[in-house]
């Protein structure tokens, strides 16, 4: 592992081992990524902010500590990227919005502080749909991010900067956030592993809130083991987050390693009928359904017992989500009023405060954010609350009940992660409903707060397809076990990791395209 190419295509776990063994220094690893970012990110557009000097300084500090013989954690010196929704002290944080342009926070998110304490090296902040609202990263106020598999296509969203960065070898791994699928769907369409943890298991302190009752941060990685390692590093109770679950960090990496051994004997797998099953195939691409069916067959081949499970309330997940998330967002985004930080527009002495606030928010927010604020304001209005927000919260209970009764019969539920592969840039921008449909499969787990992972299950038309594995609350380890088994079986059959195929597609041929 000495060439830049090797460094930027290897798993974080392998980098960690090489660093611990002294085969590589953190500066070497970090520089390799920075070089590749300099060469390639003009095309990909994964990052909103990269501070090479700060990254190299942090890397150098880890190397120096290692040279002094200091006790370092396993992740020390491994670079990483954070979605720009994560608040980082002194480092620009925008959540993809003009309204926060130039803001340098005076504090660190809990997960950023944990990764810093673990000795990881922050490469930069990744692009995203503004305030995490979107499924294509096209709602970023700053730039377009391209899918490394085909740069005419979207990288998924809202964590599209993180997915593109990891898939394109611009970071070994990254943190994303998932409100309705924003880790899993971009991971799926870029051939990555992405896990949305049980709600409450990763601190939300310092994540710029979109929908408080749904937001969760999690790993976006090249391998299942990496995801488990990154998840373990950021998980655990945080007294600064009242919704944080006060229980020990689950053993995840060990589950991934065990899963990779390929023995799923006795595991009961439920295929969700409502998510692409019989009678529910509208909007699902045949290629996606075919890859998912093959993955299910692989699980069966490893000893899993597979059955169909019906979760009728899942049909209402999309409408419930598009009431709950905008409602909470309309309130969460009210603090962006131009008084304490961020943009202020029109303060020329001629306007009163209300006018300046309204102009600031008009100019600072993009159209999708405004649409959702208006929708959420409507859904919370007196007279409409019961019919919309209140009703949606009850539908949430019905979805949770479907999960709960499913757990009587199965250990995990599976489905496609997204009904389609990555679509071409611009093709859904003017059609919010079509855009929202990308979240069809990921929403139930978000609404119920249960863990769900997306793991690659092959290509359709040369583009990655994601396989979703959902588990009961706090049983994140099951997601890792099953995902690792699938990953190992597929890699063995293919002879290499799915991501290795990327070299022959998009990025290599379009590297020198004008950005």
């Amino acid at each position, binding site marked *: 592992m000495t060439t830049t190419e090797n460094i930027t295509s290897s798993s974080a776990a392998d980098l960690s081992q090489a660093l611990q063994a002294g085969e590589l220094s953190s500066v070497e690893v970090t520089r390799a990524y920075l070089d590749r970012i300099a060469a390639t990110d003009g095309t990909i557009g994964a990052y909103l902010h990269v501070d090479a000097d700060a990254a190299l300084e942090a890397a150098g500090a880890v190397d120096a500590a290692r040279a002094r013989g200091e006790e370092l954690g396993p992740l020390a010196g491994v670079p990483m990227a954070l979605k720009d929704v994560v608040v980082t002290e002194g480092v620009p944080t925008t959540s993809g919005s003009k309204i926060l342009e130039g803001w340098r926070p005076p504090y660190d998110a809990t997960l950023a502080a944990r990764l810093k304490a673990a000795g990881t090296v922050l490469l930069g902040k990744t692009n995203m749909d503004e305030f995490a609202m979107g499924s294509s990263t096209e709602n970023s106020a700053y730039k377009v991010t391209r899918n490394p598999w085909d740069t005419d296509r979207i990288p998924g969203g809202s964590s599209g900067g993180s997915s593109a960065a990891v898939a394109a070898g611009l970071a070994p791994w990254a943190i994303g956030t998932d409100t309705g699928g924003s880790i899993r769907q971009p991971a799926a369409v870029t051939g990555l592993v992405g896990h949305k943890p049980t709600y409450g298991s990763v601190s939300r302190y310092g994540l710029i809130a979109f929908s408080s009752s749904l937001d969760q941060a999690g790993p976006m990685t090249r391998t299942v083991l990496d995801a488990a390692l990154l998840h373990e590093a950021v998980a655990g109770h945080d007294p600064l987050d009242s919704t944080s679950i006060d229980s020990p960090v689950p053993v995840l990496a060990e589950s991934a390693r065990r899963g990779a051994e390929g023995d799923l004997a006795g595991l009961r797998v439920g295929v969700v009928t409502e998510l692409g099953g019989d009678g529910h195939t509208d909007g699902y691409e045949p290629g996606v359904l075919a890859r998912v069916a093959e993955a299910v067959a692989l699980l069966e081949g490893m000893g899993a017992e597979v059955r169909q499970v019906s979760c009728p309330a899942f049909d209402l997940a999309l409408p419930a989500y598009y009431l709950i998330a905008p409602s909470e967002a309309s309130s969460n985004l009210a603090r962006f009023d131009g*008084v304490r930080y961020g943009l202020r527009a029109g303060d020329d002495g001629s*306007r009163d405060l209300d006018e300046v606030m309204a102009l600031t928010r008009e100019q600072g927010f993009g159209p999708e954010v405004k649409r959702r604020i208006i929708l959420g304001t409507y859904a919370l209005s007196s007279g409409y609350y019961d019919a919309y927000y209140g009703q949606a919260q009850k539908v949430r209970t019905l979805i949770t009940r479907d999960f709960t009764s499913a757990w009587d019969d199965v250990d995990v539920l599976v489905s496609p992660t997204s009904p389609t592969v990555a679509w071409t840039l611009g093709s859904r921008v003017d059609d919010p409903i079509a855009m929202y449909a990308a979240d069809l499969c990921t929403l139930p787990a978000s609404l119920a707060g249960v863990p769900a992972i997306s793991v690659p299950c092959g290509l359709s038309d040369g583009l990655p397809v994601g396989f979703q594995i959902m588990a009961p609350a706090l049983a994140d380890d099951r997601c890792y076990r099953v995902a690792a088994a699938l990953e190992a079986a597929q890699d063995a059959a293919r002879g290499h990791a799915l991501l290795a195929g990327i070299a022959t597609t998009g990025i290599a041929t379009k590297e020198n395209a004008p950005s």
Partner: protein
Amino acid sequence: MEFHRSMSTPSPKGQLTRDEVAHLAHLSRLAVSDEELDLFAGQLAAVLDAVAQVGKADVADVTPTTHAVPMTNVMRPDVARPSLPRDVVLAGAPAAEDDRFRVPRILGEEA
């Protein structure tokens, strides 16, 4: 003080009018343009049509869900901790004066 929401019936699905969108935009402090109003009214009507499906669910005796793992009584002890230095607090302010955040004149009543 009124503690019960009025139970008026929502507009029929898909009937979010341009005027209603304008009112909601004002309530949300968004100085939307006329073009946006036209655009949003159409798009939101379609979205509302889709989300109104939640009304189909039979939710008699169903309690609303808020957290995957039900928790109560999460509290912290009453201990004072250091605050941020004032220069840090005001560093991000669009305008500051006399160690305070400066805002344009406020119309309306004193709260």
